[in-house]
């Protein structure tokens, strides 16, 4: 993990309010594992508002070796980021946190992404070579991030939109459920058989639904969580999330113990 002043190589609007930024930080890129994140400084020294760094999943490593970040403009920090030009530099701290545990050899993976949750899952899909299936959900067609922007090819992907403007009209969890309920013999893709892992990232209600399904069906499932963060390093204890009742500890720290957690490690009622 290092801290580096990186060149912003590109920063393009690729979907509604959604930007694709690539950063030149070879050391961080070399170390990065799917599910890990970086903390970006969004202001230039010595301007102190907004004060804290912003956490972003590492969304992949581009063909040219650059670190890929996909983000949606939701507030002050991301609005500033959207104004970064290719002459700008940005302080990047990373790679941080505990990423996904990759599927066992030949184990199938079901990747379930809600909105910007695609970011860490895109990177995961880049790194998994066993059978994998990607389900993505967006509010609307204009938010869809293309497989090309994710650096993915030859992947079996299905999309759902809440307003029905593209793909399945409904939630991404509908796609997952339908898939899991299809008898295994009818599937080319990984089903709920042993060895299958569900990987999910997205809004909390979606994660809750995925977790409930996985726990009910006994499918192994890892989720990537979000939390407000200050240090990103496990030093401030600001990013606590309730641990499963039966755990030894009352809280996990999203930045260090996560952001990726096995669904069984979390308290889904208290979250």
């Amino acid at each position: 993990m290092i801290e580096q002043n990186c060149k912003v190589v590109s920063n393009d609007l690729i979907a509604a309010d959604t930007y694709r930024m690539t950063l030149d930080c070879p050391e961080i890129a070399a170390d990065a594992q799917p599910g890990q994140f970086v903390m970006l400084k969004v202001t230039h020294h010595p301007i102190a508002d907004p004060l804290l760094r912003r956490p972003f999943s590492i969304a992949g490593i581009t063909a040219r070796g650059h670190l890929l970040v996909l983000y949606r403009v939701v507030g002050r920090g991301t609005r500033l980021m959207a104004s970064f030009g290719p002459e700008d530099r940005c302080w990047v701290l990373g790679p941080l946190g505990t990423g996904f545990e990759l599927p066992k050899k030949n184990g199938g993976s079901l990747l379930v992404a809600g909105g910007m949750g695609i970011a860490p899952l895109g990177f995961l899909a880049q790194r998994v070579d066993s059978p994998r299936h990607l389900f993505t959900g967006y509010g609307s067609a204009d938010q869809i991030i293309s497989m090309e922007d994710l650096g993915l090819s030859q992947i079996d992907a299905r999309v759902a939109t809440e307003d029905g403007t593209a793909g399945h009209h409904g939630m991404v969890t509908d796609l997952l459920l339908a898939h899991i309920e299809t008898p295994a013999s009818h599937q080319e893709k990984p089903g709920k058989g042993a060895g299958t892992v569900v990987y999910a990232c997205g809004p909390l209600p979606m994660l809750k639904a995925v977790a409930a399904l996985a726990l009910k069906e006994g499918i192994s499932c890892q989720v990537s969580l979000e939390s407000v963060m200050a240090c990103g390093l496990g030093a401030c204890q600001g990013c606590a999330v309730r641990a499963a009742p039966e755990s030894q500890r009352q809280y996990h720290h999203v930045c260090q113990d996560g952001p990726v957690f096995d669904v069984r490690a979390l308290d889904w009622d208290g979250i």
Partner: protein
Amino acid sequence: MDGVDLRVRLGSLELKNPVLAASGTFGYGREYSELVHPDRLGGIVVKGISLEPRAGNPPPRIIETPCGMLNAIGLANVGLNTFLKEKLPWLQSLHTAVIVNIYGHTLEEYARVAAGLRGIDGISALEVNISCPNVARGGMAFGTDPDMSARVTEAVLRETDRPVIVKLSPNVTDIRVIAKAVEAAGAHMLSLINTLTGMAVDVHRRRAVLGNVTGGLSGPAIRPVALHMVHQVVHTVKIPVIGIGGILTAEDALQFLVAGARAVQVGTGNFVNPTATADIIEGLNRYCAERNISTIEDVIGTLETG
């Protein structure tokens, strides 16, 4: 930049430079060690330790505010025993001052934590956080009452063989009154300020943002308040004073040193810039070198007034 002597002496505590990492923002030192090795710093103050482990407050625990942040971590920590077993050995391998921040909810608890740290190698000093709610007095913080502040100080002094730094709360009418009481009780040093009490409301949900409703405000926003209190206390007590509050840069640190603080602590600044402490040391060096000042001692307390 060589030539410049950054060493400072705070009573019996000698530091290689006046820049410390503040309690609760630098973990147990190890978390930041890949970025800034503690050996480069004047010292580190570890996360506040209590007798028993504490899980802390329900989330959300932090929220950004204009040029600052509120935290309601709830003094989460591993507790004295785990600290000694799991965190101390690494700290003992350091070549810098290791200051252990302690707290309690009763006088007894403060005393027992201090006793538990007695005679242990590798601990340079104790820093006593007196901004804790006193359960015997309906949760009013010890540090808001001169008498209780003095009694906490005495309780710790009785049990420890290390220099004692008492860390003052800014949530008081006149911090000089507390400073004097704590000095009279025998404290070796003072550090200030701890966080100002604050709050934020989510107007969409119409709820407090923090799980704990209220939290402690830190960061550049509070720097002017911290500097004023340090300036007041420096002119009130004879014991050394450590300045804390909103320090991000060498210039910020210099404001405190010029005002008379003999060292500074960097808290929230570590989040903004994880190498802030090291950058500040470099900046102090440069400031002195550019002005042909050979020792940082010649900067401390040089504020001209009138």
